[in-house]
């Protein structure tokens, strides 16, 4: 089996995880910029982080033969401080030309505040000005439904944004339809407790189809499972999905979306 891990916070993981993922068939990993678990105090901390994402982490993954790509932003969890966000967003263009940067992400909302919305709009403007793909984080738990609606409103309000170049992540049963109806891609995050289980993710595929959906582990420093995607592929096989149909979801779909960025190339593609 082959699969893409389209959303993994690998700076938080050990090299054992890289070994396990490659052993399970992972062909590439994509790492959105994330909250470190504490608020960084200055833009210079982000400059170092973007260096880690674009230089150090690809080298670490390459030791296991795994292509590593990334997305850049200031995460919604740090968006309440708009001055800091402005400084960080001003840094991002100097990194956009690096060979493994796929776009702007994971932007979005966390607690659905006015400042978070303002920073989301700044990120969307940045992506539009630089013709970048967008990866969107939707809020957690009780904040997801409202936050997803607000995010869709922001994207729809910017006429420069092409919906098919935006993936809205962490969809669940109450948000997936609205994301797909707006023409975006949807991402299902496979978490042990707080997002989709493998069984529910396959339910969503059964109900809504697999045309514009992908699955990811979003593994980070919290409770998460780096092998969640291949485990969900096993769940699909247990439910009668053919190997070809599983491959479309866990490999071909991420390739289809990510290949809209010309820098996303896998080794066998030359």
């Amino acid at each position, binding site marked *: 089996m082959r699969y893409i891990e389209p959303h993994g916070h690998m700076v938080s993981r050990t090299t054992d995880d890289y070994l396990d993922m490659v052993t399970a068939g992972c062909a590439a990993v994509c790492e959105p910029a994330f909250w470190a678990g504490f608020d960084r105090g200055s833009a210079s901390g982000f400059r170092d982080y973007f260096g880690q994402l674009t230089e150090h982490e690809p080298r670490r993954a390459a030791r296991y033969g795994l292509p590593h790509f990334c997305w850049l932003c200031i995460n919604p*969890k740090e968006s309440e401080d708009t001055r800091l966000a402005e400084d960080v967003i001003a840094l991002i263009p100097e990194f956009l030309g690096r060979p493994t940067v796929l776009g702007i992400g994971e932007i979005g909302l*966390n*607690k*659905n505040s006015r400042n*978070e919305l303002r920073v989301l709009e700044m990120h969307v403007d940045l992506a539009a000005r630089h013709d970048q793909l967008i990866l969107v984080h939707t809020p957690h*738990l009780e*904040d997801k439904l409202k936050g997803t609606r607000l995010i869709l409103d922001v994207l729809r309000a910017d006429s420069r944004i092409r919906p098919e170049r935006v993936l809205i992540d962490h969809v669940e049963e*109450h948000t997936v339809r609205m994301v797909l109806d707006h023409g975006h891609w949807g991402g299902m995050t496979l978490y042990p407790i707080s997002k989709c289980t493998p069984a529910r993710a396959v339910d969503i595929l059964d109900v809504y189809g697999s045309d514009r959906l992908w699955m990811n582990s979003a593994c980070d420093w919290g409770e998460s499972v780096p092998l969640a995607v291949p485990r969900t592929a096993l769940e699909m096989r247990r439910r009668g999905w053919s190997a070809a149909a599983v491959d479309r979801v866990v490999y071909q779909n991420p390739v289809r979306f990510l290949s809209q960025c010309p820098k996303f190339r896998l080794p066998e593609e030359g």
Partner: protein
Amino acid sequence: MTRQQVLDLYFMDARCKLIEVAAFLDRVDRATGEADFRTVAFRDALRHLASEGTGRTAAVLRTLSDPTEQPVERAPGKGAVGAWPG
């Protein structure tokens, strides 16, 4: 999948989770002190389990969600607790 296949694959897992929910509610009731909005939201969401149709999952998620539409003035923190405090 046939219903028999679904039952064969998921019944024991769902049975386990059903009993865990019952045990959780018993635990809450045995405990002392005041409960909070999470208990109310949980019990409200439970009513969807006995409903007909295939929209139970989305209905439960909506019941646990913030139903308002306007952004809040300031983020009250970073975390989420799983139910809307109102």
